[in-house]
């Protein structure tokens, strides 16, 4: 009995070791791939040169759709920043998803909103739309007021109301850089096969924001937000750049993504039963196009920047990670027959299995690794020195990957201009291995547990508002 137990323990230890090697090596491979992609991308068109293209009558109009639920602190500032976008033909549709606070009232006062008769088709089914308002001061601003139905439902209502062939789906608190829309639209001009484009999400906490624009980029003062800066750099500059280069991009972030409206309608809009609706739409589009055997592109671009406020308290961050984990499981559950299925090409054979193994079950394997190591130490299967070395290796490897992300930032966009900020980012890559990483693993395990218990819902995000920074 005891020998069987030890045998299982040893076998498990082998598995954890293999997993550790595989996940970190895959991150490194992504970083190397991203390095070459970004080096090429850097030499592409500058903003000034893009302008002449954007003035062309061949440039399609874009409807920017921002759902808002209890966003009274940031609504006016956010919408103002959206209206500053440098794009020839666009409208901003803010969907008030049955807010219980003063979101609608504040927007009405700030933008002179009046109720307007509008010809809105209801191609996608949504909760009841109460009224549509247009602004007398900003002709391109539309507000859809509807009953609460969740983020996906609000976005669907916005897509119904959209007048232009492209829709840009964002969060109400997202701050888009003035050229973001221009850059995100380019892949659509470049290739008619483009279905969707995602931009990079950066952390706005700590940055100086004036009149809806980020004027100075700084590392946040709050430690919880600081760690997320490195996380976001790693996820976007290494992860998404590489996934996109392989044609296996599975997430266009809900905070900023541009789609062809007709393709979203054809796909049936956003799925409001899941909390991972951004990933679900992306995976569904892969699925539909692969089943139809039609060529298509879902692209991540590293330069259209969307700034977003990240949680500054552990509790709210924990809720967010818990929600992301539940969303991930839901999406993988919906599309489980794609996983490992050669019919879906690289998406079925590589991207989805990667998410299953490293993202969905990663936290469980990681925690099991800690438990097994303790067990193996107890039974004398490994000695302390070996355990210490293993831990050191995991820290060094983790730091290497974070540092690689900082290098990618430095060779491409150099947003963090101060040497002290750069050193801070590198330092964060080391420190996060002692506590923060384990904490996120724990939140994700709780998310997995909550998913298995069938818990839904979003949890609250308390916003402080950009103007106060």
């Amino acid at each position, binding site marked *: 009995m005891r020998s069987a137990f030890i045998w299982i323990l*040893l076998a498990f230890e082998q598995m954890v070791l*293999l997993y550790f090697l595989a996940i970190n090596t895959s991150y490194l491979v992504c970083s190397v791939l991203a390095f070459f992609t970004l080096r090429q991308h850097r030499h592409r068109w500058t903003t000034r040169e893009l302008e*002449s293209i954007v*003035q062309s009558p061949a440039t399609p109009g874009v409807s920017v759709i921002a759902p808002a639920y209890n966003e009274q602190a940031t609504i006016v500032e956010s919408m103002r920043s959206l209206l500053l976008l440098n794009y020839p033909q666009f409208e901003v549709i803010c969907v008030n998803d049955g807010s219980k606070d003063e979101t609608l009232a504040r927007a009405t006062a700030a933008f002179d909103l009046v109720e307007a008769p509008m*010809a809105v*088709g209801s191609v996608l089914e949504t909760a009841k739309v109460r009224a549509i308002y247009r602004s007398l001061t900003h002709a391109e601003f539309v507000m859809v007021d509807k009953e609460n139905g969740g983020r996906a439902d609000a976005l669907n209502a916005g897509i119904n109301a959209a007048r232009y062939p492209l829709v840009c789906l964002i969060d109400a608190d997202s701050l888009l850089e003035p050229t973001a829309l221009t850059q995100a639209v380019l892949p659509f001009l470049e290739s008619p096969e483009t279905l969707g484009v995602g931009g990079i999400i950066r952390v706005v906490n700590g940055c100086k924001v004036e009149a809806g624009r980020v004027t100075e980029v700084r590392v946040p003062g709050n430690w919880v937000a600081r760690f997320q800066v490195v996380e976001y750099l790693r996820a976007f500059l290494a992860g998404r750049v590489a996934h996109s280069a392989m044609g296996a991009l599975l997430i266009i972030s809900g905070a900023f993504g541009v789609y062809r409206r007709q393709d979203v309608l054809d796909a049936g809009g956003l799925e409001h039963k899941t909390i991972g609706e951004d990933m679900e739409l992306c995976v569904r589009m892969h699925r539909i196009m692969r089943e139809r055997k039609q060529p298509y592109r879902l692209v991540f671009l590293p330069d259209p920047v969307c700034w977003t406020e990240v949680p500054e308290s552990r509790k709210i961050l924990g809720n967010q990670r818990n929600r992301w984990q539940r969303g991930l499981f839901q999406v993988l559950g919906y599309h489980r027959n794609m996983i490992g299925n050669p019919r879906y090409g690289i998406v079925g054979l590589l991207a989805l299995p990667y998410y299953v193994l490293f993202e969905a079950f990663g936290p469980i394997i990681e925690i099991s690794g800690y438990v097994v190591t303790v067990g193996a130490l107890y039974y004398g299967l490994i000695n302390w020195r070996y355990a210490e070395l293993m831990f050191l290796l995991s820290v060094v490897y983790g*730091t290497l990957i974070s540092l690689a992300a900082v290098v990618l930032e*430095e060779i491409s966009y150099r947003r963090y201009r101060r040497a002290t900020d*750069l050193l801070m980012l590198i330092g964060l890559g080391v420190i996060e291995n002692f506590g923060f990483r384990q904490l996120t693993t724990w939140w994700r395990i709780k998310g997995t547990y909550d998913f298995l218990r069938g818990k839904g819902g979003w949890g609250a995000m308390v916003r402080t508002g950009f103007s106060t920074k």
Partner: protein
Amino acid sequence: MFLLSDLFRDYLILFLEASFASLGVLFAYVLIRHGVANLRESRETRLRTLYQPAVDAVLSAQTPPQLDAAIAGLQPAPARHLGEIGRLLITPLRVASGSPVVSARAAAARLGLIARWIAELDAHQWWIQADAARALGLVRAEGVLKPLLALLEDPHEEVRAAAVEALGHLGDPGCVPALLRAMTDASRHQRARVVEAIRELGPSVAHALVTHARVRPDDLAIVAELIGFTGAASAADDLLAWSGHGDPKVRAAALQAIGSLGLDDRAYYYTLRALGDSDEAVRAMAARALGRSRRGEAAPYLAQHLGDDWLVAAHAATALRMLGKSGERELVARQEAPGLAGVLARQMLWERRSRPEAGGGAA
């Protein structure tokens, strides 16, 4: 039993050492790069401050002696500063035309920049080729048509795109057939660039476009669309002929172009006739053209299409909004109508009241 951990144990130290070494290398790389990038930026700022006044003097020179004196101010610059001077010279040309372009070209020629850019068209790095092509286009360099046309066949998409842009700046109608061929190049928004390049060539290009369409009837629709963009009124007869073409795509493109050029009496009747076309896109383009004509007498005809297919109805409603009092009368008469016609009429009336610039003020 074979244990991975045993194997790994032997290599653990080695692995750790390799990881530490990579960490050190990356750390040094990122810091050195940061330093070098900062140095490069401050050098660029310094050079810009140094040469900007002289470059401004070149671009604003009104007489040949002024220009000579301004160029003389730049000539003592060492060769390593020429790249930055070239950038300063061409940057304002993206939005300028006329005498600044002539002055910039003269300065670039005298400083040896044009010869340098022509040589760079054969560079190994694509971005140097693309920058050189764009620079030659912006200064409207002479005698570079051939090498730029050759770049349209370059294997790198960015270089091809830069060549299209440069050809547009040069303004030589001889490049039209090559540009239209480049429209089939699906890479890097080449289509949009070609459209922009041909727009920049202006109305003088109409003859070349029409000739091209006669030789290659497959390109008729796109040629019609381009004529609309260039504003070439001399091609109006051909457009009217194409508005009765057998292919609905050609008819729609021709009507779109007619709408952009403006309607004379003959075009007005052709367009009215097209309102009864069997194809939805053709009817929509006819409605759009009638709206842009601002001819109030078209209002009753447009009003009949408020209950048409959505695309036609939306264009007809927008057109009525632009037709002043007579358009408003038709909209008022239909605001209580059931279905789409009523919804569109109410919306357009609201827009006329709340946004005079959307058509309410124009009569």
